[in-house]
């Protein structure tokens, strides 16, 4: 098998080839590491590539096979990890100077689960600092570039993970999604990204941003691979107090569904007006026609409070962030900056946080501090929590008539690097379709549905299912993906122009 074939192979194919001994895990990871060397200087998806560790892990998988041991479902599959997930002994920065030289002394539960499934972790990917952003430009270590057009953002905050998968540097990747940070970059890079139901993937070892919203999720180049990775990372974990009980649902079986006739889709009436690019809506309308032609029921539904999702989120998430990020106190780990030799704890803390945090993180900490402060708590934070109730009720009502709710994932295609960095409100608008879903804690997927007639860049559709019914995302998306690939003559990602080499 050629290196090129290994780079474009699906996770399911690689696991099968490695398990049956047709290809070694070492060959697979070597091909990927060489490709990373070739293109990541241009894409900049990775903050750290662990070539040595990846080769060691791959050889370990190969020797397990040789000795007749049963291999896991991700045998030899190269996985990229968003740098917000702790991996023992590897740098874990969260895209921040404040954690620049931190090497966690423990593994996150997702890392353990990936290793148990015989996956090969190739490195840590770039992200908006502490997952705050929608373009990966808030990384202290420079932006990631969209593999479809290097002058554009890959979305965020998991932009590095999305770009790694879209550029074939990794077969699948782990991201985290607080307000859209898996779904939006998946849409902007033409791949599949899933935010599982809140609480169904352990957050032990995920550096916290907004605890009532944070969720780890998979990136893949097709629906089945996303289901495969999702199945590996999901499950109850006693180490995460908010982790939900185990689900008995078979996501992989759902991803093998080919019949759309029994599925009722609800199109969000409120997610097509102001802010949505006409070219995005054109593709979204086309896919609705396709759903009907496949026998699905398509009807309009209303989420009357959806437009309040953005303002409510930008109160709740910063409030929780201001509390969570208080742990960066320069005492136990991370950066310590002393303004003078006699400085007190408080002075050291304030100087460290000034030097170690970037502008967006500081903005959100101050907004959160304000919203939680005496005299403003009731007027801001408590009000935002009421909006959360209203949005959750909207979804609940809508799900009485439909199985899956759809809208565009992102109102626009990938924007130019630098275009929105100095305008926080313009950046926040990128998440208007994903935020309400997060506030309600529901599972959602972004599925590639086509390229914009205007700029040739990928467009994603967001599918939302009721809580704990993640399998519906897969059973609804799989037949749509199959029909679209028939039209395109292959996966959308194969339409991506080649990345002009940029060595690391």
């Amino acid at each position, binding site marked *: 098998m050629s290196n090129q074939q290994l780079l474009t192979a699906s996770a399911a194919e690689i696991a099968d080839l490695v398990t049956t001994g047709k290809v070694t895990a070492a060959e697979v990871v070597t091909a990927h590491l060489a490709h990373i060397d070739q293109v990541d200087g241009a894409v900049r998806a990775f903050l750290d590539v662990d070539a040595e560790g990846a080769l060691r892990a791959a050889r370990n998988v190969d020797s397990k096979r040789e000795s007749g041991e049963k291999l896991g479902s991700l045998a030899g599959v190269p996985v990229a990890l968003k740098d917000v997930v702790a991996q023992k002994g590897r740098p874990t920065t969260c895209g921040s100077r404040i954690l620049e030289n*931190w*090497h966690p*002394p*423990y593994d996150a539960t997702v890392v353990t689960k990936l290793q148990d499934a015989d996956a090969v972790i190739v490195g840590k990917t770039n992200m908006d600092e502490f997952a705050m952003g929608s373009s990966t430009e808030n990384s202290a270590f420079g932006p990631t570039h969209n593999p479809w057009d290097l002058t554009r953002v890959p979305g965020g905050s998991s932009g590095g993970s999305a770009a790694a998968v879209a550029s074939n540097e990794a077969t699948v990747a782990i991201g985290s999604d607080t307000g859209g940070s898996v779904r939006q970059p998946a849409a902007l890079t033409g791949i599949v990204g899933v935010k599982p139901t*809140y*609480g169904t993937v352990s957050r032990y070892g995920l550096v916290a941003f907004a605890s*009532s919203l944070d969720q780890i999720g998979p990136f893949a180049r097709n629906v089945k691979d996303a289901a495969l990775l999702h199945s590996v990372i999901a499950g109850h974990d*006693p180490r995460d*107090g*908010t982790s*939900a009980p185990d689900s008995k649902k078979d996501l992989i079986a759902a991803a093998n569904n080919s019949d759309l006739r029994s599925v009722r889709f609800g199109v969000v009436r409120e997610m097509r007006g102001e802010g949505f690019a006409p070219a995005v809506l054109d593709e979204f309308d086309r896919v609705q026609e396709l759903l009907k032609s496949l026998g699905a029921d398509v009807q309009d539904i209303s989420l009357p*409070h959806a437009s*309040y999702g953005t*303002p*409510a989120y*930008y*109160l709740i998430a910063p409030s929780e962030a*201001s509390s969570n990020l*208080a742990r960066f*106190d*320069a*005492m*136990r*780990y*991370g*950066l*310590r900056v*002393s*303004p003078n030799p006699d*400085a*007190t*704890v408080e*002075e050291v*803390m*304030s100087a460290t*946080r*000034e030097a170690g*945090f970037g*502008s967006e993180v*500081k903005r959100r900490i*101050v*907004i959160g*501090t*304000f919203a939680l*402060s005496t005299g403003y708590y009731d*007027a*801001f934070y*408590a*009000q*935002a*929590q*009421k*909006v*959360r*109730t*209203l949005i959750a009720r909207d979804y609940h009502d809508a799900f009485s008539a439909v199985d899956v709710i759809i809208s565009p994932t992102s109102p626009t295609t990938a924007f130019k690097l630098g275009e929105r960095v100095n305008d*926080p*409100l313009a950046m926040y608008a990128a998440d208007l379709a994903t935020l309400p879903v997060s506030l309600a*804690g529901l599972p959602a997927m972004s599925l590639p549905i086509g390229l914009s007639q205007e700029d040739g860049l990928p467009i994603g559709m967001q599918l939302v299912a009721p*809580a704990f019914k993640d399998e519906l995302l897969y059973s609804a998306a799989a037949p749509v993906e199959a029909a679209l690939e028939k039209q395109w003559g292959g996966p959308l990602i194969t339409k991506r122009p080649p990345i002009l080499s940029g060595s690391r």
Partner: protein
Amino acid sequence: MSQVNSEQFDLAHLAKLARIDFSQEELDTLRPQLLAILEYVARIGEVATPDVEPMSHVFKLENVVRSDEVTPGLSPEDALSGAPEQRAGRFAVPRILGEEE
């Protein structure tokens, strides 16, 4: 819902609460940005009426406790491995009180 009065918006005080030693230049840039964000988020007052219950969490959660048994945790060496400064197996910190305290 009360709009934020820009005269009452005490950014220096918030910065102190947040333990961030902003430069004057940063404060000057931040101020209009934060006021614009707060003006935007205040929109929620249009629908967050007194009859709506606030939602603090997505699902009903009980406090989670485990049985009081010793389980393996981080070793002292591991726990200290990321410390900016350590002394005799402990985190070393700058002095707590300033001159005038």
